[in-house]
């Protein structure tokens, strides 16, 4: 006889029998934690103060963060809906390939993965460029050790970035081939370390006296350095413009740079139960939490130094003329905190947390890239060996090795160009590739009405006669179009998109198309199966 599950008291909604699979959902907290991890409390935690402030001098950092977060909420909604529509690995690729065009979806996914791996390398390069020099320079000055200062200089040099970056990439590879359970523990430790580092920063910035900052700064950066900073930046061309319109413009451009990562759980949608609720709540919560963390940092920092001064330091670190003239700039919130509270244990803790979480960040990129590669493998688009899982480690070693090799290119790119180069370009590349799944999601109700009707209630929401996802999708597409246009209009934040980089983008897309059609031809001839079948709709009888 069928054994029933007792219905909830007073509810007459569902008569469930005792059967497998009736499990609870992963909590929103869990999804939020992962989203925060992907945004990164370390790399993204530096951007508002070290970069945004100098690109738009005078704009409110808090205002920029707020505008950026608001626009990201729309994008997050679209990607959460993609995950809810196709709750499986690489949901974006899966949706676009089923709804729009398989070769185009694969080419976009291919480009995204290759550039994501490169960005992982660029993020790893932050360790020798920012985290290590901040630690060793602070220690060298505090403890009067010229060798530590020299190490800081070497660490940020081309050779140092490549050498230390390569070691960190190998560490990342080494940790990523460990069993998943171990990787998860490593990431969990990193999450709490990252939070701990911010608590330390809050403590350092919050307990320092504003009047003590100039002397503390000068002690590290040279006598008179603090007082002359704004004038020096103006000498190199900084123009302070505290205009709300400029601030809004900056927020419109900076969303992905600061908060990129909140939507990455969509790539793991297959592992999230009740994805329709969890993905949206998790990604929005991660956006709001990181916004709050960075805003609190800005408030505490502005307690010590005026906005214009932060802008000047940031500007000097980016001005080619200032850099060429040998002006040293350290516009990092970690450095500001170390200056006002030069406690070796605290500086060490923050530096270790920063290095650890930067590797964590690279790990999350490795993680989602390998998930997407698996999705390609299911569709028989790549050779089976790429997704081969080691029987004891349970890790896709070849896939991770390929990602590591591409990450190494990212490290070299960062060492030979700017440490933000690949990441800057990445936003442009990522946005371009996002057009394919976002257009697919926007048109999903019209192109696949049968699947739309069977989709979860969250996907089927309507705004009057129009599906809500179509409305939000159009807003998201408008935002993304603006991001692309802004990459050309504002080379300082667009990474200087030129014909070479456009050529690279075209090259990646074309190689993706070649892989798709090559794999299709091979499977058809040798196995008698057409890869296109996996993307086709099947009408019910």
């Amino acid at each position: 006889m069928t054994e029933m599950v007792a219905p909830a008291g007073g509810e007459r909604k569902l008569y469930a029998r005792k059967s497998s699979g009736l499990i609870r959902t992963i909590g929103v907290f869990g999804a939020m934690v992962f989203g925060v991890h992907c945004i990164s409390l370390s790399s993204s935690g530096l951007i508002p103060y070290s970069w945004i402030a100098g690109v738009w001098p005078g704009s409110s950092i808090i205002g920029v963060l707020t505008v950026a977060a608001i626009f990201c909420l729309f994008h997050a909604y679209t990607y959460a809906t993609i995950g809810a529509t196709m709750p499986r690995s690489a949901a974006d690729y899966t949706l676009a390939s089923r709804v729009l065009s398989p070769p185009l979806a694969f080419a976009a996914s291919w480009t995204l993965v290759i550039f994501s791996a490169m960005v992982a390398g660029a993020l790893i390069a932050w360790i020798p460029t920012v985290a290590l020099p901040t630690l060793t320079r602070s220690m060298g000055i505090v403890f009067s050790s010229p060798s530590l200062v020299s190490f800081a200089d070497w660490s940020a040099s081309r050779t140092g970035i490549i050498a230390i970056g390569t070691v960190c990439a190998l560490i990342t590879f080494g940790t990523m081939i460990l069993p998943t359970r171990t990787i998860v523990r490593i990431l969990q430790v990193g999450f709490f370390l990252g939070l701990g580092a911010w608590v330390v920063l809050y403590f350092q910035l919050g307990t320092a006296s504003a009047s003590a900052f100039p002397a503390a700064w000068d002690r590290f950066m040279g006598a008179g350095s603090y007082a002359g900073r704004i004038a020096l930046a103006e000498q190199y061309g900084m123009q302070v413009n505290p205009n709300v319109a400029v601030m809004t413009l900056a927020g419109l451009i900076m969303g992905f740079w600061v908060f990129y990562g909140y939507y990455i759980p969509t790539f793991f949608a297959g592992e999230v139960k009740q994805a329709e609720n969890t993905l949206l709540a998790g990604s929005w919560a991660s956006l709001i939490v990181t916004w709050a963390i960075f805003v609190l940092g800005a408030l505490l920092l502005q307690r010590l130094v005026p906005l214009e001064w932060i802008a000047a330091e940031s500007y000097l670190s980016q001005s080619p003329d200032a850099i060429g003239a040998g002006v040293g700039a350290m516009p990092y919130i970690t450095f500001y905190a170390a200056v006002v509270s030069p406690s070796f244990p605290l500086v060490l803790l923050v530096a270790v947390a920063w290095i650890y979480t930067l590797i964590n960040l690279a790990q999350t990129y490795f993680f989602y890239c390998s998930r997407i590669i698996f999705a390609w493998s299911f569709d028989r688009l790549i050779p089976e060996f790429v997704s081969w899982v080691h029987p004891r480690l349970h890790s896709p070693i070849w896939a991770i090795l390929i990602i590591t090799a591409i990450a190494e290119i990212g490290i070299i790119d960062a060492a030979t160009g700017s440490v933000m180069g690949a990441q800057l370009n990445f936003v442009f590349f990522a946005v371009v590739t996002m057009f394919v799944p976002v257009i697919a999601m926007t048109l999903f109700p019209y192109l696949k009405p049968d699947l739309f009707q069977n989709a979860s209630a969250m996907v089927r929401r309507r705004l009057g006669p129009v599906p809500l996802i179509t409305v939000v999708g159009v807003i998201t597409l408008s935002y993304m179009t603006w991001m692309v246009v802004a990459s050309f209009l504002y080379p300082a934040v667009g990474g200087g998109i030129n014909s070479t980089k456009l050529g690279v983008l075209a090259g990646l897309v074309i190689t993706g198309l070649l892989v798709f059609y090559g794999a299709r031809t091979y499977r058809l001839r040798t196995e008698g199966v057409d890869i296109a079948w996996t993307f086709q709709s099947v009408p019910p009888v």
Partner: protein
Amino acid sequence: MGMTRLLYASDFHGSEAFFRKFLGAALQYQANALIVGGDVTGKAMIPILHKGPDRYEAALFNRRETPSTPEALEHLQQTIANVGFYPIVLEPDEAAELEADPVRMGTRFEQEMIGRVRLWMNLAEATLGPRGVHLYFMCGNDDLASIDAAIEGHEHIHNPDGRRHWIDDDHELVGLSLANMTPWKCARDSEEDELARRLDQVAGLLEAPERAVMVIHVPPFDSGLDVCPELDENLQIVHRGGHVLMKPAGSPAVRRMIERVQPLLTLHGHIHESPGHVRLGRTLAINAGSEYAEGIMKAAIINLERGRVKGHILISG
């Protein structure tokens, strides 16, 4: 003998859309034989309360549905069936009586499950029979024993559970619906030693294992086809640092048997989250996965040719 194209899927869990698409895929991809790997029945009934003349009320996925025309009622019933549930229209007092009597509720549920499987079998026979295509339809650990009887009685439909059938001149098929013990203690869950014994029995039916297909509901342990979220004692997903902890939940007995017997092909289901294919020695093992609740069909197309797997691909639609 030329190439034989198999179409395989499992874990329909009552989804009408999934099964109808499965049959549609057989026509679209010109399959020569269809195999179903178990867990064909749904998990819940949805009561649609008759509140008055042309007034009905139900809740689907926490959304209140109030059809007010016969067409709207039919559409709601179809939507419920498509996601694998069983719509039952009840007067409020009927619902109260049913809820107060677990035995009656269980009997009604069993009738609904058997009824839908019978409908499916009739549809399959009508669709496949004229084309000479055979369907090998097996239950899984979630399916009551009484479902087996609903499969019988059709010329082109066979239940391979514990039996041997020839798919074509070269390839034989055996099946086993049992699974290792799950946290839910389902109808056909069994201990590993009992599973091993039954596996030996079905493997012993094979004439030429190197050319045989085995449809075994539960996948082999630690094969990558059996990865699912880890659950705690309250059946809640365990997660750390924002990640769901996954673990293998397949059967060691199934793995040992595959490694020992080395059939040509094994087909599995059970773990919806873990579609894929893997080689265990010379055996190709496939789990097609399942997304029945979304009305999505997930299946595998496998081309067999003279005792070898010529090619295979996972599809969804």
